[in-house]
């Protein structure tokens, strides 16, 4: 448990002592801020639905940018050998690194709390969907971070790790929009696999156990996959 915490804190420091954290957070805030406020005044509605609707798409390339270095960089520099010969288990390493990525997702989301506050000044905000939206954003971030971590285990090249993770995350995000090609029976199953619908439910403020289960299982699968890949490699 303690080792997990030290892995986590080392990764967090590594994010914030280098420019990565600041660059990723700025890009995230620029993109979401621009898309959100450019249409905000047109609709004349005091809610954050557009902001949350955009999140899966933005997350599917911002979160892989956070996670791409987690394992790939260590394998590239060889420091992975030192990490795994310290008295820590592989699971502690993976969970620690995953939590650090989740910490970065939180660090990105915290400045966006300014949006609901701004909106609240302009008109009454329904805080239920906002709270739901942030919960959903966290779950989505966690699921994508687990996928990113898995991709980072596959290769020592960070760019490949980024692309693989982005493809998987984009795929999950866009899956429900391309289902009209498919027969209904198949579409039903695949629709459950798409993260869009699950996220939409939560961001409306409806917390359904099916949606929670979806994000938790995607996260679990990503981390478990990461562990299997590493065990297979060494």
């Amino acid at each position, binding site marked *: 448990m303690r080792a997990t915490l030290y892995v986590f804190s*080392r990764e967090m420091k590594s994010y914030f002592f280098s420019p990565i954290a600041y660059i990723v957070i700025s890009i995230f805030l620029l993109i979401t801020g621009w898309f959100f406020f450019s249409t905000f005044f047109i609709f004349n509605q005091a809610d954050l639905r557009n902001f949350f609707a955009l999140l899966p798409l933005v997350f599917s390339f911002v979160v892989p940018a956070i996670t791409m270095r987690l394992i790939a960089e260590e394998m590239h520099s060889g420091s992975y050998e030192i990490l795994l010969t310290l008295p820590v288990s592989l699971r502690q390493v993976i969970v620690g690194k995953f939590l650090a990525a989740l910490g970065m997702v939180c660090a990105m989301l915290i400045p966006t709390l300014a949006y609901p506050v701004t909106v609240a000044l302009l008109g009454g905000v329904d805080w239920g969907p906002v709270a739901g939206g942030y919960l959903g954003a966290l779950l989505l971030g966690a699921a994508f971070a687990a996928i990113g971590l898995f991709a980072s285990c596959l290769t020592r090249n960070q760019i490949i790790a980024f692309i693989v993770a982005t493809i998987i995350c984009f795929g999950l995000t866009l899956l429900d929009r391309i289902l009209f090609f498919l027969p209904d029976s198949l579409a039903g199953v695949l629709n459950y696999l798409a993260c869009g619908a699950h996220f939409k439910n939560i961001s409306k403020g409806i917390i359904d156990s099916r949606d929670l289960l979806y994000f938790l299982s995607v996260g679990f699968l990503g981390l478990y996959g990461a562990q299997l890949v590493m065990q297979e490699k060494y």
Partner: protein
Amino acid sequence: MIHVASLTKYYHDMCAVDGISFDVARGEVMGLLGPNGAGKTTTLRMLTGFLQPTAGSIAVKDYRIEEHALKIRRLLGYLPEAAPLYADMLVYDYLAYVAHMRGLQGVKVHQRIVELSALCGLAEVMHKPIAEISKGYKQRVGLAHAMMSDPEILVLDEPTSGLDPNQIVEIREIIREIGRQKTVILSTHILSEAEATCDRIVIIHQGRIVADGATEDLKQKTGGEKTIHITLETDAPATVQDTLQAIDGVRVMEVREHAGQVDLKITTAPDRDLRARIYQAIKAQDWILLEFCQQTQTLENIFRQLTQEN
């Protein structure tokens, strides 16, 4: 202390380590010697639990590695080849991180770092990023990292590779210092290093052990033929080889001529001292003897004999 039995590792179809067995006693400094690609690093990586062996067993103090991997890691300090440390961290922060990971807490962390800083001579670089310090200092930080929890066993993979001669001497001194109390396993392809630091040497070649023994024993055991270097001045260089070869038990290995001088390298049969006979043969021809020296079998010769076959 450490028991390794028929350890084998395949990378896909390539056999890197082929049935190695050895025991290391407490307090021993063992050198794993071999040419590049002999399987030294792979052996050490399996010993530290970083790689899974394809077959064979490893036990450290009665703990088998399959069941007690974490316990063994606590007993071991490991310096990987080329010390791959986190380049973005300050030396002090890095050592503090390792100390925490190894279970040190509170004031002990700082105390231990100060101790190691004195032992490894790190005071000057403590507050520099690892990316900016020289190779020699990096190696020393790696050594401090390995010794952090004062482990009973130290595993060092090529601890002096890439260092300059002064740094090599320093690191060797540190290792010898540690070796007084701890069990040390180090790998190297530099013979003089193994000779200078190790009590015992295991030579491996193509994944197999080809020699295993105390450094002194090893030197004596394989001391079959003796090599003699001779330099002569003569008017008839062409006859030199035949004259010497006529002596029973002498074989001329190498002849070089330049400016009226002849350099010879000859070997003599084992357990016979032929130096007097050779001298008399030279004297009989009235050649001027400039140099005459018999080489004792060095570790280098043994190493070359054992690892150049095939």
